[in-house]
């Protein structure tokens, strides 16, 4: 573990004192790949059985728009994650597409509740001096959707949820979000946090130059204690995990004589016609 360094402290002061300097943070979570098989053992998801870990897809949209914000307005983009050692791969991948610096709060998050994780992430954001924060609306594994609003609350930042696009608007930022009657455009000033639904632009692919640059970037690795976070007792306990019920086997129909049966099933059982 690396203790808080004077260099980082300087950066924090720097970002506060320079009016136009913008530090953007993107919060990333490593989750089982959406194609990975999930096994449940002893009432818990067996993480050791997960063959492939990836960045949570909604976080990828947040990363893409964080990159676009940086390109439009300049400043520094830091990727932050809280998770076990394996999560650092995700930060290196983020560096390959253009993230400037990476902060990894190394922690076993499997038994933490969302409030504890929000406390860690809020402290990490303060540590980096970021005032514009982007993250996914929910993680692909837990689907709780609490991290973004929770972190915004702890930071006292404006929170705009379920956005599909963010841009710079004057001295502030403008986000687009879908609502039941159409699209809503919301303008906020910093400090602000945006949680991303599916964005309009997919995360860019890295290139060789970015990959080689990423190799040279050092991930700052800290613990919750280094950030001064006292986690305390978990207030929320997950009772158990269970796999979804198995899908019933498909039914096969052949020949024109089966058409009435199929139509009846589609209408009465599947409710699709």
């Amino acid at each position: 573990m690396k203790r808080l360094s004077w260099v980082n402290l300087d950066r924090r002061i720097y970002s506060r004192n320079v009016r136009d300097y913008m530090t953007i943070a993107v919060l990333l979570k490593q989750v089982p790949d959406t194609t990975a098989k999930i096994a449940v053992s002893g009432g818990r998801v067996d993480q050791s059985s997960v063959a492939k870990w990836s960045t949570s897809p909604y976080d990828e949209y947040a990363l893409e728009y964080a990159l676009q914000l940086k390109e439009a307005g300049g400043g520094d983009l830091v990727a932050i994650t809280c998770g076990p050692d394996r999560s650092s791969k995700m930060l290196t991948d983020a560096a390959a597409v253009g993230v400037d610096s990476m902060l990894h709060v190394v922690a076993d998050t499997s038994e933490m509740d969302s409030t504890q994780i929000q406390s860690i992430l809020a402290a990490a954001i303060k540590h980096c001096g970021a005032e514009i924060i982007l993250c996914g609306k929910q993680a692909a594994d837990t689907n709780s959707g609490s991290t973004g609003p929770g972190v915004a609350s702890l930071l006292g930042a404006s929170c705009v949820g379920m956005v599909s696009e963010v841009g710079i608007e004057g001295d502030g930022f403008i986000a687009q979000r879908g609502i039941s009657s159409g699209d809503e455009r919301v303008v906020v000033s910093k400090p602000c946090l945006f949680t991303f639904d599916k964005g309009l632009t997919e995360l860019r692919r890295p290139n060789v130059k970015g990959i080689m640059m990423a190799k040279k970037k050092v991930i700052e690795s800290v613990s919750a204690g280094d950030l001064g976070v006292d986690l305390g007792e978990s207030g929320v306990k997950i009772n158990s995990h269970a796999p979804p019920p198995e899908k019933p086997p498909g039914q096969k129909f052949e020949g024109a004589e089966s058409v009435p049966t199929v139509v009846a099933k589609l209408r009465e059982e599947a409710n699709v016609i």
Partner: protein
Amino acid sequence: MPFEALDFYDVDSLLTDEERMVRDMVRDFVDNEVLPKIEHACRDGVFPDEWRVTLGEMGVLGAPLKGYGCPGLSYAAYGVICRELERGDSGLRSFASVQGSLAMYPIWDFGSEEQKNHYLPKMASGEWIGCFGLTEPDYGSNPGDMITRAEDMGDHYLLNGAKMWITNGSIAKVAVVWAKLDGVIRGFIVEDEDEGFSAPEMKGKHSLKASVTSELVFQDCKIPKDRILPGVKGLRGPFSCLNNARYGISWGAIGAAQACFDSAKEYSLSRIQFDHPIASYQLVQNKLSWMLREITKAQLLAYHLSQKKDAGDWIPEHISLAKMNNVDIALEIARVARDIHGANGILDEYPVMRHMANLESVKTYEGTHDIHNLILGRYITGIQSFTRDLS
């Protein structure tokens, strides 16, 4: 189902983090931009131009070359790039092989400083496409007897002759052409707008349909004096290029084999005959296990060769063995995969017949299977068997 690259011995764990990131980048490109379009490109007989753009944006062209805007990656990374591209299509990998190993490499190794600065950055970015003119209609395995001639006219060279089976020929801005000047093979850089140069496309291929194959025709083609490659004379020039391209092919063939294996495995698990998946029958399992065995051996061979290439501890015969073996097993795997798919195997709904047809070309180009055997035969016995006096 998403593609899962067969890697029974976890050979990719031997790659560096950087090499695996390059792999994932190219794999993503193939999954999202190549595979959805490849059958259409084959039917139309075109190489989609957007693939050129993306290859340039990714920065994988001329992968192992350093400087002049080139990526400077390891040979292991170059191999992985070829493998992932050929998992999409051999035509796509051919484009990258020709651009990097056959057109950029000779300029990088044998070109003047001015030539390197002028051509390589734009070729690395994909802005300029390159091709390589060595094979002639009557001289394939025996390029040393080529007919194409260059004549020194004082203030320029005059090129006359024809090349055949030239990948990228009709779409290339830059052609590296090998011709005899005073009886010695030399490399010349020909540009698409040079007077007396034309590159008609060859049509009617049943193989590498998503790749452009052309003739190069030189009729009193005027080449400025500063376009000769100053750094090499004789067959060493083109053979140096071929060594690098053949190395890439030894990896690329694994990608095609992995694609065929993946398709055969999925098909055999879902195809029901006699009330059971055909994957449950011993004859099919025997075929799948043979594929796994050969792909695993090919992976180990290619990886070890990459380490020798990166260490500079290799001889051309090492590459001959790898190219010959890996293409040979890939072609046979494609044929067996087609067999497992039954009649469905001939449809373009599945990739196997496309790979099979492609690999027939790959077996022949860049040194035929038989020629590589003769190269190894000469290495073992010390006796060359390419030619003899039959008079």
